[in-house]
């Protein structure tokens, strides 16, 4: 019989560890992240996994040195870390690379948003505007995706999806 995978059990341990790190953040001065930080304000995944390994070892759980790879290979690992990292103002463990012109525009708006925030902290109107633009962009992206899918459906099957009212 194949050996059961240890990855789900390790993930459960990681969740508990992250929960503690988040509690430290909440109860602390909330100025310094409690997760290890890498260059560029990103979570230092290797350092975090080393700390996690040491913490788990004290609890009698053996975390392999290669466990940091799970953060890049298993979406669920990255998501758990990102949830805590974002709250501490850190960039995600698996920041997404823009994969389209729309995404690039999206990224630019996000960057612009950060500049506005840096230059005029507290300008709620500017932030609201950014949020509005982001929402608009997301809507357009979704609409573009839908139209592209309908167009591809037509090329694949010769069928036009009926969306107008029938008379």
């Amino acid at each position: 019989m194949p050996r059961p995978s240890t990855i789900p059990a390790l993930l459960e341990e990681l969740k508990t560890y992250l929960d503690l790190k988040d509690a430290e953040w909440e109860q602390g001065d909330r100025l310094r992240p409690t997760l290890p930080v890498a260059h560029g304000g990103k979570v230092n995944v290797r350092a975090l996994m080393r700390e996690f390994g040491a913490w788990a070892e004290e609890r009698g759980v053996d975390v392999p040195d290669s466990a940091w790879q799970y953060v890049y290979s298993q979406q669920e690992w990255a998501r758990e870390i990102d949830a805590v990292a974002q709250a501490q103002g850190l960039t995600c463990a698996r920041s997404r690379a823009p994969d389209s012109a729309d995404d690039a525009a999206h990224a630019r708006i996000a960057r612009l948003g950060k500049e506005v925030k840096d230059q005029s902290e507290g300008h709620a109107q500017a932030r609201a505007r950014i949020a509005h633009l982001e929402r608009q962009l997301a809507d357009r992206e979704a609409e573009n995706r839908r139209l592209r899918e309908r167009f591809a459906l037509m090329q694949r099957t010769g069928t036009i999806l009926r969306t107008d009212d029938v008379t």
Partner: protein
Amino acid sequence: MTSPVPERLVVQVGSVLWSGGGATVFGGKTADGEAVRVVGKGRTFQPVAGEVYEVEGEWHVSARHGRQFYGDASRFRRKAPSGRLVVPWLQRIPGVGPKRAKDIHRHYKRRLDGVFDGGVPLEELAGVIDPQRPNLAIRVAVAIMREWQEVKGEYEAVRWLEEHGIEDVATAIRIARLLGPEAVRLVERNPYVLATVLPWPKVDPLAKRLLRGRADVEDHLRCPERLVGAIDVVVQAAVREGHTAVPKAGFEDLVAERLDLRPTPALAAAVLRAGVANRAVVDGGDRWRAPGCAVMEEDLAARFGRMAAGGECCRVRVPQETDLRRILRLVERQGRELHSEQREAVLATLRRPLACLTGGAGTGKTTTCRAIVDLWEALGGHVQMAALSGKAALRLSEGTGRTGPGARPALTIYRLLLGLRKRTEGETHWGRPPAEGEEPDPARELPELTDRTLLVIDEASMVDLGQMHEVVEAMPPGCRLLLVGDAFQLAPVGFGLVFHHLAAQAAVTARLETVRRQEDASGIPAVSRVVRACRVPDLPAYRPGMRGVSFLAAADGEIGDLVERVAGDLGGHAGRLSDLMVVSPVNHRPGRPDGTVRDLNRRLHLAALARRDLTEEESEAATVKGYFGNLFSVGDPVTFLRNDYELGLRNGSLGRVVSIDPEAGSVTCDFDGEEVSFADRDQIDLALAYAVTCHRAQGSQARSVIVALLDAPNVDPTWVYTALTRAEETAVIVGTSNVLERALGRTPAHARRLTGCTFDLGSTPAGKAA
């Protein structure tokens, strides 16, 4: 005999078997997976496939139908949706895994409306998500709420579909994606929208039930929504058969049949009114055109017209006749010398922004093509070549001398389009760009179409309308298009005809008539010309050792045996892969396997194994069982079934098994000197290649070809012609003369196709000149 004990069952409706006369019978499955038939008494009960009911009643045994469950339908209770759609959908939201999705779904009683919109306090939500880790759970809850705004429209659609008995996750997500946040409103207004993605027997009962209850629908059986839905389905059925139009004669009757209504003049008038008013059909004279196909046909016709009329500016200057001939002579000196017919074809093609190069098998299309692309590059142009299948792309690369280092090989059409999309996203190479100082490799550069490009599509007769539309849409103005193929070979698998119509027009077509590949002494060119004329050739009876085309009479059930015998006479598959090819029209035919691809592969594999003189135990140890009846042993010829660029294999790549590991279930094959191992799961892409279908064989040749002539509807003159012309020296037809006569008496598949447009270029200057 009856069982008087009342019982309760939970049954998911599989299909409604009968309805009327005060009862409805449906087949379905219980939670344990047991198949049951349920009879619900009562006129109002109208179950729909996918719905789940708790039914109360008794088992009875019917003499005709066996054991059935009978109950009063008014006591049947519809069960809330199982979450089969919503749970997998929910767990796709970042932060929600399978366990959290189930917990959330269960806790909120399967209604998530308002849960993530602030209707539930964050702390409560966190408690449901992960009560053991409150801090982390709050973060996850915040992440879900942020994401929720993006996906709640999709959720509404998925939940609606689940509530209405559609529990196929992939279909539900597809519908939600196609229709977007408006999905529920659209589907509630017109449930027949779903007819595009779901089968009619599933859509119609669901839609009738929804429309019957609506105040604004007078007659739910004859309302425009249902009429248009039925028209869409009739048109789709025609498109699935390859047509892009349906004859007007009898069209209303086909729609009435779908509607399950008696055809009357009033119904016919209502069908036509609804069809035209809602553009479910487009008028095409004596035929109704499928609207999606009509859009693509008109797009292509307009673009082809512009190109043929010289309305697009290409930045490569084509010199005057004398200079062009001189440059061609230089090109010929560097490559292969052309025959005068081929030379004229090259010159004619170079003058046309839109061109077809056609000719029967063996007339030297690829040689001519090589001269065309070499000449175009000599003029400063850029060449991009593509074909539908990986095998055809490989042959095109080889035939035009573009395989070595530094060459830009032909791509499959799929990969061409993928590469062009990547280009628009700013990428330049397949994989990582070369490092500084690294030698540039054109084969790794993404394809690019510009106003200097000559795009060559080989085996163009097999490219369907949708694929051609995608290709032409990707061409910038000024980009030239050369379609190479033979209209008498197999028609596209998909719908429509483009190449066939264009190649019939002299204004854009260069035709090669002289056969060069097969030696005249073999007699194959003469026989194939007779077949091309749809006449039955006079074939000699097969004798071992004879060349040319011969016939071996085989009664029904004997074809497999005789193909095996002839394969043995011809030396079997032990030599080079291009020595012998066995072609059959049918992959698999339950009940009548004789002579099908699967049957022949199995037989020839076992015959090869038998020649190794192994004991029964040794034979078993010498075989690995693959998928779809494939058995692999060392020495078996195999083919790869998809394009995998990381492995360096294409759909149609031929190889040979070099070793197996029966314990691990793995197979190692040699493809052109490269060894590739296939673990158990990967073998789904691997098949024995003792025998192949004609579609797979198109674009390849072999010294000898055996044709298993089965009586199948797709065996028409084009099929026989394509099969025979794969042979260079010997072709043996195994079957009955009746089947051969019937096959050659059939109208070729392409001529049977009803299309909405012939891409007539007669009105363009090029057309008038011709």
